[in-house]
């Protein structure tokens, strides 16, 4: 679980010195470090990416996993933080639309970033819901017909200092 001021991994609090987006960079340096593409990502993707890395760090990627792993994420505000950033590039009198920002104006990009990192060619799905509890029946119905290993959870980001991620790994083999 990651908030702008706190991090908990497997029930244990992780000590951090920064807050907000800077804390995500701090977590990246501590848990990842070798994936410069991280710095191109918007805050929503950084949040989901770092949370996923912390969960997956002990599980090395192999080809066996690639097409039967599933990633399901949800939030309430879709890609609003990056939507707002993109809007600033097309404001009246300052019309310089940024393709690099535009590509992040979809919430499911975070699931794609994690899939690329771990070469997961299974399902990636993103839902917009009111509350994290609403995700539970969706996860259950996804796993029912096709058991797989699942990375799932809530990944919400309104600003660089207002976000919340709670992800879990579900082994269902």
């Amino acid at each position, binding site marked *: 679980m990651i908030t702008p001021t706190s991090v908990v991994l497997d029930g244990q609090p992780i000590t951090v010195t920064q807050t907000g987006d800077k804390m995500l960079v701090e977590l990246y340096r501590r848990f990842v470090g070798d994936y410069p593409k991280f710095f191109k990502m918007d805050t929503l993707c950084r949040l989901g990416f770092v949370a996923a890395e912390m969960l997956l760090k002990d599980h090395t990627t192999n080809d066996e996993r690639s097409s039967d792993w599933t990633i399901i994420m949800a939030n309430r505000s879709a890609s609003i933080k990056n939507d707002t950033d993109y809007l600033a590039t097309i404001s009246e009198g300052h019309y310089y639309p940024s393709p690099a920002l535009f590509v992040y104006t979809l919430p499911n990009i975070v699931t794609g970033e994690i899939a690329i990192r771990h070469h997961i060619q299974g399902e990636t799905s993103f839902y917009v819901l009111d509350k994290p509890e609403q995700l539970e029946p969706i996860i*259950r119905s996804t796993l029912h017909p096709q058991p797989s290993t699942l990375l799932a959870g809530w990944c919400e980001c309104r600003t660089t200092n207002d976000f919340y991620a709670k992800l879990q790994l579900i082994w269902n083999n």
Partner: protein
Amino acid sequence: MVFCIGHSIISPLGEGSKANFAAVQAGRSGLKRYDHRFADVEPICASLFDQPQAFVPMCIRSVELATAGGACPLDSHDTIFILSTTKGDNLDLWTPAVGVASYFANPNPPIVVSNACTSGVCAQITAQRLLESGMYKHAVVVGCDLQSRFIVSGFQAFKALSPEPCLPFSEERQGLNLGEAAATVVYSIEQPTTNDQQGQDWTWSLESGAIHNDATHISAPSRTGDGAFLCLRDVMQGVQHDAIRLIGVHGTATLYNDDMERAAIHRAGLDSVPMCVLKPFFGHTMGAAGILETILCVMQAQQDKTENEQQVHVIKMLSGFGGVNAAIRLRV
């Protein structure tokens, strides 16, 4: 397996699935040149409503048309509303979903599927899973996106738009056209028994669906069509290749998308199956595309089906940003 008990399309070509099907059969296209519709952006070729529309009323009208037969109890706990959209109502996706569901007095929190351009197919897969798991008996799946300065400027910056009507799978294709539409499909666990308003001929069953990521790039598809191939492989399980009557491809007419789809279809051994491409009529209607195109592909297969044919299958496939691909197989 779940059964379609109603559907509708609202587009610049008309209101209702039959009107839109007839327009396509007659070769009418909604694509036009717009010079000044959106401030600052360069002239575009798109399929837009004459007057700017409001998102929630557009969705409501689409649901009303699809449920006119009364087969779906909209205000029941047994019915779930699922909205497929990428930009919703002015970037807000959750509030309009509540607006639509509450208009019909539905007591369940709705679900919004936002999986880029694959949302309309993914939303139907979500509906099938929820119905088959026994949680609900009916699912109202609404897809809608309306064009805006936000979307047009972004696609233009991406150099993905064609200034002319798009040419899917042509060597001369220059990119995609954007479009506006709302489309609804209502699924039920109960097979329709009577020849109601929609008519038995206008129903189908959703047999299977699959979603796979390319895991290569967030804005460019896999050159070898990995994710799309895996989707086709999955939905072909349990069915012979010669039972597939039609593949409704994404066919955006961007250089990379069409190449990718061709590679995936080849890998799946489906080269000889006729393809259906609808972007030259409607443009890319984003969250509505998967639903609108499913309806029209099925209607085409129904029209082509001969009396001796018991089972004809249609595949609808889509791909989108984030590397995501999706496909469903429908039995007609």
